[in-house]
């Protein structure tokens, strides 16, 4: 498969991939229950709620209580999926997740929509850019940030098989669909999108599509990129990162997150411990977001395709 094979003509939001995956899970596994904090429509949880009313719990605007209820539901063998915006799924309830879920080793799936800048017009109060870092730091927590509709759908199914707490991060905007329903999703295993020897670009979430576009542009300038999709930020696929960077000798990371604590730092940690190499970050530069259209915000905050291309050139120059 080459980069030119990615020509998606359909777009869907990743949150809808979650909603469809949750509905499918409800049919497959009656241990699955869902809780939502007054955002059922935004999280696309209506299909599950309508089909399985006994297994759906409306928590109201009371996120701390929702996380506690989810932890309690595991006692008795349920597999709870909580749904609210990423900001209210992490920062608002950090201590509840820390004590009642992560430290207590409860099999709760914390599902978070509207992550990052691409939430758009609601602005900075709702655009959390710190959530990957917060959740990565919790012992026992698995952190997953899928890239498109089908990858979110498949991740939603996959985390049901993972015995332990998971943070699943997705978003609001319609986004190109470039993975397929039958594409395997293995937690902790990177997806190698393209082979190249000059440079490694590692991306997660919505930035994977922009990375594919950037890699195509770089290819036009005869720069061949290894492109890795790290959808599982914790546990991270160290082998895939080291196999690639030991070949290319430099790396760019791209994420819709603060440059502190996210994918870039996770990759840097792997490299610092094993194979130090020049790294450039495409990430939000330690600031809050603002209202605007998703594409405009990505551009303003340095997360555009051209920013990945520029970072790639800087990384190459440091080899």
């Amino acid at each position, binding site marked *: 498969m080459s980069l030119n094979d990615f020509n998606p003509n359909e777009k869907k939001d990743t949150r809808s991939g979650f909603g469809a995956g949750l509905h499918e899970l409800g049919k497959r596994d009656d241990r699955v229950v869902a809780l939502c904090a007054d955002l059922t429509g935004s999280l696309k949880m209506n299909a599950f709620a309508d089909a399985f009313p006994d297994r759906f719990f409306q928590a109201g605007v009371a996120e701390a209580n929702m996380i*506690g209820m989810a932890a309690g539901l595991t006692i*008795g063998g*349920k597999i709870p999926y909580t749904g609210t915006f990423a900001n209210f799924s992490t920062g608002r309830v950090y201590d509840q997740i820390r*004590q009642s879920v992560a430290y207590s080793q409860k099999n709760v799936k914390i599902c978070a929509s509207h992550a990052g800048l691409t939430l758009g017009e609601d602005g900075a109060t709702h655009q959390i850019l710190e959530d990957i870092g917060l959740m990565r730091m919790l012992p026992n927590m698995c952190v997953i940030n899928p890239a498109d509709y089908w990858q979110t759908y498949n991740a939603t199914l996959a985390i049901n098989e993972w015995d332990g707490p998971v943070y699943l991060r997705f978003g609001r905007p319609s986004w190109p669909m470039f993975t397929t329903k039958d594409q395997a999703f293995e937690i902790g295993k990177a997806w190698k999108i393209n082979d190249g020897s000059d440079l490694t670009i590692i991306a997660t979430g919505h930035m994977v599509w922009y990375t594919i576009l950037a890699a195509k542009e770089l290819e036009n300038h005869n720069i061949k990129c290894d492109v890795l999709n790290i959808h599982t930020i914790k546990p991270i696929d160290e082998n895939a990162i080291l196999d690639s960077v030991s070949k290319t000798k430099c790396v760019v990371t791209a994420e819709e997150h603060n440059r502190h604590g996210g994918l870039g730092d996770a990759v840097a940690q792997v490299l610092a411990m094993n194979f130090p190499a020049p790294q450039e970050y495409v990430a939000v530069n330690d600031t809050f977001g603002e209202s605007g259209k998703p594409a405009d915000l990505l551009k303003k905050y340095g997360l555009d395709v051209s920013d990945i291309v520029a970072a790639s050139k800087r990384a190459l120059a440091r080899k």
Partner: protein
Amino acid sequence: MSDIKQLEQLASQIRRDIVRMVHSMSSGHPGGSLGCTDYFTALYGEVLNYDSSNFDMDAKGEDVFFLSNGHISPVWYSTLARHGYFPISELSTFRQIDSRLQGHPTTAEHLPGVRMASGSLGQGLSVAIGAALAKRLNRDNGIVYTLHGDGELQEGQIWEAAMSAPHHKIDNLIATVDFNNRQIDGDVTDVLSLGDLKAKWLAFGWEVLEMEGNNMESVVSTLKHAKTLCGKGKPIMILMKTEMGAGVDFMMGTHKWHGVAPNDEQLAQALEKLEETVGDY
């Protein structure tokens, strides 16, 4: 009455355990532990349905207890050990390195009897609601019990849970508040008063009972009465009046023994008041 006498004798032993555990590491929370000793003794001795020889996280077919105010772990650990969850000798490891008896209860060390970490306050009622919902879905007749401090009710999450339980028609939940009007910085009425607690829980839609928490007969009869109210569409809240430090005279009447351990001399004084009934650990 003989049952009550036996429970009181066990409570005396548990109080000895508490002061000895806290003294041994010069660390822990004796005041609330002593105040709630009669509740724990009655709950595990007369009320709760459990199998301590075969601890199972899912508690299918059993009752479940959550300690939300985790700092009174000494009374829970002693009660669990005295009812066969783990060896009584293990009480000597309380708060020591490599112990399963952490300062605050945890599942991380796989101590039988503990199903949820607690210590950061205000979380246990939400967890209990979830466990009660799981029992409903599983058609499991077990009842979920929780204990909370009164200072803990200052946490906002408690009131989210207070709204939530009646909304979801939880009626297999018996929560109890240790209403001793003491918290670390002083009297609850001085630190952040709770107002009319009974009226608040009633207004939230709970069935509210009151009991004298340091009177074994009152505790046993109230807990048994609470069980008969289960299955009637409402969660149950018991406001339990206790005396912090109950059973050790110099620890009573003050908040100062909330989180302070007795020295050697104070331990000896405390043990003089508490009869050794079934043997020290």
